[in-house]
């Protein structure tokens, strides 16, 4: 048996010849750079990778990569990507979407791609605003967000993408943030390695229409107190002095300070592989300023993929030969 050594691709090998046209300072630049790094780490040839996107700023991303790309219509990328995955099961298929694309028009398709566990890597750029259509509130805009269509502040309760993905039975669910490049690249690589549907929410700053909405998670002076980094098997600790923790009081999460009779053992231990996503869901509900928000992997479990089950089910029903199908169950000869 011979082994073929793949030519090593660098992140730059994944650049297309297209000029990147996002606004200066957009969080998307950082995501694109980390994606290229993650792709280079896959040891997959370019033709085995595809990016499928919907509309909005995030939707432009496939044009900036040298892989296969399909820039679809608003919200439909998960459906397009599912079809591609069925036709080309050996390809790694990514879906690039935004909060408007995935959670307004495309909410149905996102939910069904996740519940089926199609082996897609779905990354949702969440900037909590419609950017390309010039600054309207989105389904994730937090209450009170001032936009061109919510001049008094939004009054619609926002969707929480991680909660939605967990409710949709996603097998890999994670959150990261545009400016934390090391964290993002770890998450993207783990999403890429996951066999099954992977959902990654990326907090992404829109410089023009919603600047600074994630400041609590980026400003180094306050970040430590407002973010919990999820680590599998580790207690949920945060804070500048790593002495703040999360414990469960009945069904309610409670922030406690370690010391004064409270020890590390009292804290919740993060288990991304828990079969039931109950605690992951609880973590997905933590929103500032009352609670720190979680970054990292909420859930990472294995379940058979849709494309595999579909093939298995077809294989298990003995396909009738074409002649038998054509003749049907009741045919007769006229001589």
């Amino acid at each position, binding site marked *: 048996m011979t082994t073929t050594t793949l030519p090593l691709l660098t992140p730059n090998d994944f650049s297309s010849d297209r000029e990147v046209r996002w606004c200066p300072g957009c969080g998307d630049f950082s995501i694109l750079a980390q994606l290229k790094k993650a792709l280079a780490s896959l040891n997959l040839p370019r033709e085995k990778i595809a990016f499928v996107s919907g509309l909005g700023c995030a939707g432009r991303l496939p044009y900036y990569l040298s892989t296969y790309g399909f820039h679809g*219509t608003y919200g439909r990328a998960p*459906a397009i990507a599912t079809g591609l995955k069925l036709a080309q099961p050996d390809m790694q298929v990514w879906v690039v979407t935004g909060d408007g694309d995935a959670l307004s028009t495309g909410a149905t398709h996102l939910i069904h791609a996740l519940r089926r566990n199609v082996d897609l890597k779905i990354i949702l750029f969440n900037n909590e605003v419609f950017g390309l259509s010039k600054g309207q509130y989105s389904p994730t805009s937090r209450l009170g967000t001032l936009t061109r269509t919510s001049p008094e502040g939004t009054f619609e309760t926002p969707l929480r993408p991680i909660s939605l993905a967990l409710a949709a039975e996603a097998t890999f669910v994670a959150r990261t943030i545009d400016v934390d490049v090391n964290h993002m690249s770890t998450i993207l690589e783990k999403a890429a390695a996951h066999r099954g549907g992977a959902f990654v929410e990326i907090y992404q700053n829109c410089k023009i229409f919603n600047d600074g909405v994630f400041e609590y998670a980026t400003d180094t002076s306050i970040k430590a107190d407002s973010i919990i980094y999820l680590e599998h098997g580790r207690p949920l600790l945060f804070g500048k002095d790593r002495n703040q923790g999360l414990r469960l009081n009945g069904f309610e999460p409670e922030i406690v300070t370690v010391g004064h009779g409270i020890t590390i053992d009292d804290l919740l231990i993060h288990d991304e592989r828990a079969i039931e996503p109950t605690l992951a869901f609880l973590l997905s509900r933590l929103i500032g300023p009352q609670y720190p928000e979680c970054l990292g992997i909420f859930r990472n479990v294995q379940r058979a993929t849709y494309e595999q089950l579909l093939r298995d089910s077809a294989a298990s029903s003995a396909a009738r030969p074409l002649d038998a199908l*054509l003749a049907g169950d009741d045919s007769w000869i006229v001589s």
Partner: protein
Amino acid sequence: MTSREQRLAAQPTTPSPASRIVDIPSAAIRFAGDASDGMHLIGSLFTSAAAAFGNTVFTLPDFPAEIRSPPGTLAGVSAFQVHLGSHEVYTPGDSLQALVAMNPAALAAHLRDLDSGGVLVANADTFIPDELMKAGWTTNPLTDGTLKDYRVVAAPIDMLNREAVSAVNLIPREASRCRGYYPLGIALWLFDKPLDSTLRWLRETYAKNPAMIEAASRSLRAGFQFAQACGLRQQIRVSKAAPAPGRYRRINGTESMALGLVSAAHRTKVPMVFASFPLTPASELLRTMTEYRQPDIQVVQAEDDVAALNLVLGAAFGGALGVTATTGPGLSLQSEALGLAVMTELPCVIIDVQRAGPSTGMPTRTEQADLLQALHGRHGEAPVIVLAMSTPGDGFEVVQEAVRLAIRAMAPVIVLADAYLAHAAQMWRVPAAADLSEMPVTFAVPGQPLRVPDDRGVKPWAAAGTPGLEHRIGGLERHAVTGNVSYDAENHERMVRARAAKIASLAHDIPPLTVDGPETGDLLVLGWGSTCGAIQAAANRCRARGANIATANLRYLAPLPRNTLAVLRRYRKVLLPELNMGQLAQLLRAVLGVEVISMTKVQGRSFTVAEIASRMDELSRDS
């Protein structure tokens, strides 16, 4: 007298003298009853018996609108109509020469279609006050004179069946399940058909339940003997037809489309992804494709019609044959993805099993009112190919043609079927898989320029996954040469025109419109889709009376065959029957500038042969 004696007293019990046989070229019978009466099975067995005898057959089931309607109500009546002929029959038959009504509701729903003098077989056991009331009869039609124009066989079928099967050890439920075989026996005698094919079917079907074989056979024979003895005296004989030698089966439009798709995958050797959301009446095609699955045909039940077509486009990007099936409202949802298919130049097939609309309309009823939606129902200038299926068996040909054209033009093809075609069944000569010619498909190879079109303006199919052909497609306008996103004004016009020209030039790849009958003359009856059968039958009827009528069936609706205008101009009048408000007529006037006489019907039902024949007669007289 006991109640049994009372009932039998109403019936002649002495064997009648040799019955008279009336020979007619074709006849129709309908079996109607509650869903639990199994009328579709009984009708289907009658059809098999007629086909085995040598008749041509054409059948149409009629479904209740609800899944489980209250027994005995009009809403719960289910029926199955069989038209048998000594020549080719093209429709289920306009009116009935015989009707089996298993309860008062079935009689109320279907009596109006029975010819005067026709035979009515009624299950007298169900004509009791409660059942009559549920069906809206204030008095008993079996005794109040309502049926004086018909030859009535009022048989206490429940009781006679119980009696026939009493010697067999069956639980009551099983005994009752045999009930339908009794009127089947009556019908087989009435139409002078032997029992052997039904008996053989019973032996094969109930091989593991000998008691059931015995009981059902007894019920069937008892019905046959009852009919012989009950004084009907007159049998209907439709003699054998003489179809070309070969293997035949019955096929409905759903089965023929599914077999066409499987055959297309077989001929192209390209994997197929069939994705569909279950909507009546297209849902049967999803079920049938699931049943016919092959290793290289993946069948997906999508979350909605939008997902179905987008999934198909993703599959086509990956080099698979993508097919979806839907009905009018689903096609509306797919208009967005159709635009994307036009823009990305990906091949795909969309089957629209039309139903009566708009909106939810009458989901189990037929109509041809999606034509303009199929042709034009999109944003932007988005031409697609549109084909129409014309007979139940034609689905086999038309979907393979759709696959061929989709790949030839790298464009979406819409196939217009309808609820009538999906359910109606006809005799169909079974092709051998070995006789299906190959349909070679060429994919782009590494190094091939993807933007260079062939002589028809078609660019190569570059399947994702191919090394060296990595490229990006999407819904944004492209520069004609570089393929990059472009908002250039002149380029957009060039691209819009190129996409239109590509579809228009496909007219060179399709056969010309052919005419049945005189090449020139006074009257051409032009049809498209499912009206074809009634037009054919009506023309034959009028020709037999001496009228010189030409007919043509327009399978290709976009692009039109190149000779369409020339053909229409060869006749003084063109009659165009459609199950809509005149959509094709409107289109032909606008596009070809010809005058056509529009004949329309929007009742959720097909044209009868008589309706079309009478219009033909009028127009022939006028000329």
